[in-house]
């Protein structure tokens, strides 16, 4: 109550009003309302009747005018009502089923189509591409066929200080990845292995886990994915 009194002297009128209303509508009151309390707000007026639309106004003035438009509008409404009645029925039917089970079934079936996420504009498909045989192939990992270092013209030995690049060629437990995983040609595989060993030897890279900064970036990525509702990466 004191706070309310103080607030009535507050130069900011708006704040005082908000606080007054707040006090007025407190669920329980231990004291009787005093004269300093503001009067209760007047009962709300009923909302004003909606202004007649142009069509309705015209219809009042001249019943013949715009009758066609009104008729068409009514007809469209009726069509919409009948058209979506079946959809509404279906949705109600689905809601009556256990929704979680339906979603689970959909998700399970979707997981069996791993290419769903990989389609790109301009892809051409034949019936075979939507078959189970193809789906199995798309779920399998394949190592890169091109040597990335050759394509980019980078010498991996010169990049030993680049821990993010080195981490790409290490497992999370700190082992150097095999050539069949990295897809490098023999020369570059030797070079990247040497660069990793060099970095570990110099103490730039941990030997039994990923670089802490890489771990941090991964954790942050995971958090944002979860925040955006994308779920964990499969």
């Amino acid at each position, binding site marked *: 109550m004191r706070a309310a009194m103080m607030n009535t002297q507050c130069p900011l009128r708006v704040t005082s009003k908000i606080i007054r209303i707040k006090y007025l509508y407190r669920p329980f009151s231990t004291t009787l309302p005093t004269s300093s309390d503001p009067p209760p707000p007047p009962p709300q007026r009923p909302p004003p009747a909606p202004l007649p639309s142009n069509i309705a106004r015209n219809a009042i003035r001249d019943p013949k005018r715009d009758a066609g438009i009104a008729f068409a509008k009514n007809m469209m409404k009726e069509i919409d009502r009948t058209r979506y009645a079946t*959809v509404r029925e*279906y949705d109600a039917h689905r809601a009556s089923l256990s929704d979680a089970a339906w979603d689970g079934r*959909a998700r399970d*079936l979707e997981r069996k189509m791993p290419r769903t996420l990989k389609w790109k504009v301009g*892809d051409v498909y034949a019936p075979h591409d939507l078959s189970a045989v193809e789906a199995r*192939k798309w779920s399998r990992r394949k190592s890169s066929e091109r040597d990335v270092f050759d*394509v980019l013209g980078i010498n991996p030995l010169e990049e030993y200080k680049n821990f993010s690049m080195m981490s790409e060629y290490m497992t999370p437990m700190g082992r150097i990845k095999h050539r069949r995983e*990295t897809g490098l040609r023999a020369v570059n595989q030797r070079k990247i292995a040497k660069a990793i060993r060099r970095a570990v030897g110099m103490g730039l890279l941990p030997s039994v886990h990923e670089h802490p900064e890489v771990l941090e970036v991964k954790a942050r990525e995971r958090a944002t994915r979860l925040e955006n509702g994308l779920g964990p990466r499969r």
Partner: protein
Amino acid sequence: MSMRRLSPTANLLRTSRLFSLPPPLPRPSSDLTASANFESDTATLPYPIHAAIETTESSLGRGDWGLKRPLPLKSTKRSSTPTIHIDNVDSIDHITDFSSAADHVLTLRKWQELGTPLSMAEGKSKKASAQQERYPRSVFESQHDNTYQDYSDPSKQRWKYRGPWLAGKTEGEFRRYVEKDVKRRRLDFKRFLRERLAEEKTIARRREATESGEDLDSPDSVAVAVVVSDEEVEVYARSLRNDEHTLHRLVEEYLDLPRDRGSATTRYDKKGPPTTHPSAGLSYLRTGSHTYNHPLLGPQEEPAPIQARVIRPQTTAANAKHDRALIGVGGVVAEDDRQSFTKDSTGVTGYNPDIPGGAKIYIRVPARASVDSRGRIDITTMRPRNKVSENVAKGYYYSERAEPPPAAVEGAQNRETPTLTRPKPGRPREARGYGLEDMGVAKTNGRASPFLGPEDEMPDLNDHLNDLLRHGHRSNPKT
């Protein structure tokens, strides 16, 4: 003439399939990633890399494809589309390695049925002021369809260049190109520079002569042909090092590099020149704007819409959200033009396993499609403006016929006995897409009106009950 002089064996070889088969194009390269990627080696490629061959029906019966040995009948004769492509004419195991080419052959046939003309890939400008051209420009316009540079008309553009698109090369590829292709042409470039210098000098000499009033055509005038010494070429080459603009122009001309025109008018200016002719041989039509005539309803505002398969809904598993759904139009993946913010059961916003055969939507026959720099087809899709044409396509233009429930609803109700309705064979092709598939059926039942389909027949008790369950009333109370 030369053919006759050849021996019969040589002649046979020259006209054989063996020699007429072009070498395959390089496979489209996958995305460059250091981490493992997912792909299938047997998936249909975005463009065909092998020539598809077919044979006459009588030869097909004998397995004769004009190759070294007959191909097995079991794997070639049973197909409804007996077209093959040859991976290896004669392998080390004395086997002709072949596989079906039906995927791209049918895609082409579907495209021709669509009748969509190919247009130049337009640059998508995000500025509101730059209004996109309303009408697509055909790839066969004389402005674009050129293989040589017409210097007299600078507005004419080429699509084919001998040199590579340097901006699209990675560092390693560029270095290899310089090492392998450019370095060995040093001497040739010197020769090219000498020619250029001689030309320049000749022009200068001519101008000088004209200004001093000499008669160049008279026999006693000083010879116009100028001699360029090696030292002069050396000095010229050195001077070019300080004149980047001229050097760039000369190198561009010498290596025939794709021209950098500054203002990007087509997407090819930003993403590199097309790898094929911009039509890619898909369609030779210049325009697709003609009125469609319905056999019963007369000329239509737009052609009968076509069905497109929903390839990737807007929301996929694990709640991954995409801007738009991807739809398959005649076997080519394209982006849907609509974006919805609410979930529904059509299968476009999210995967709906209740729809038998997968979700499909109606779209207008695409009016604009282009082939991008990597040879992939880019279709601009559009949903029908209203339901009228869609209903016309389904055959529901008769007012007393109830509109069918959405596919998902039907699918959910028929889940116990899923049926796959296919267009019945033997109907005229023209009838397809106009909702006239059921015409013949109605006629055989002694009904005169082509508006009445099999749905209008007297339903038996089960159908009646189903109708009541589905709609709460009988679909056609008239019958």
